[in-house]
């Protein structure tokens, strides 16, 4: 038994060292994962060899735990190595978060401004003699009327303009009802 023990220990030691060399070199994370799986297997075999040499049954639970832990480790690493795009797993600093937030807010404001400018231009096209700065009620009325005309003129071209004109019209009607009541 002693000879067998020595042979097995030597083989397992060499195997573990070779796997560790691959884990150190390994060009990618997955090569290291495979190498570390082998290291875990070698450790399991070494513990089993020790238990066989000493006839000890109390180290058997260690084998159960090791086989489960090796599985969890390799699955976790390969899972993150597969889905993580470039620069995604980095923890951002506070300045970077603030900068991204500012950029987002600026983009929203620009979109809002462009939308207002386009609406003003549309209203101007519909009523060239109307004043650019009108009271809110009047401007809404003009806009709905202009959109209705626009929609009648070119309903086939721009279908969603029609939608908005209708929406504005109903809103306007509702306000009118409230005032007459």
């Amino acid at each position: 038994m002693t000879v067998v023990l020595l042979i097995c220990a030597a083989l397992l030691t060499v195997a573990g060292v070779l796997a560790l060399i691959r884990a150190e070199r390994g060009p990618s994370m997955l090569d290291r994962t495979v190498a570390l799986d082998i290291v875990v297997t070698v450790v399991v075999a070494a513990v089993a060899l020790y238990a066989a040499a000493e006839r000890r049954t109390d180290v058997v639970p260690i084998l159960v735990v090791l086989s489960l832990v090796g599985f969890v480790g390799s699955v976790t690493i390969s899972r993150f190595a597969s889905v993580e795009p470039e620069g995604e797993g980095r923890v951002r600093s506070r300045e970077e978060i603030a900068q991204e937030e500012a950029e987002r807010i600026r983009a929203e404001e620009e979109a809002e401004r462009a939308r207002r400018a386009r609406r003003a231009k549309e209203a101007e096209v519909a009523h060239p003699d109307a004043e650019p700065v009108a009271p809110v009620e009047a401007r809404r009325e003009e806009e709905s009327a202009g959109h209705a005309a626009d929609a009648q003129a070119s309903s086939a071209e721009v279908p969603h303009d029609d939608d908005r004109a209708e929406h504005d019209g109903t809103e306007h009607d509702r306000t009118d009802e409230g005032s007459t009541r």
Partner: protein
Amino acid sequence: MSWDTVADVVASICLIGGALLAFAAGVGVLRFPDLLSRMHAGTKPQVLGLILVLIGLSLRLRSGGAVWALVLVALFQMLTAPVAAHLVGRAGYRTGKVRRDLLVVDELTDAQARAATRDDADLPRNDAPEETTDAERR
């Protein structure tokens, strides 16, 4: 020659076989050129080598409870090793760590190409008009 001696001899053979498989895995994982062949070398001691070692250990221990725990270890390993190997291989394929020139058969690439052409035929791309309508409705 009693039964104990026979069991010890068989246990020694099994232990040496398992250690040899682990050694082969160490050599293979160091010498093989790419991820898939390293996985191929690395999975030898994970199932067969481990089962050999556990058979050797249970022949040495010869007690009921411990042997059942060893059966449990082998069962866990046979359940988890395919899952781990599948995930590693999938991640390696997705991140381009598979060397195509070493493969004899590559069915996955063909299947992916076929699926991509089928999807393109089914769904015409209309990303741009949707984007503009969304911006206008807002």
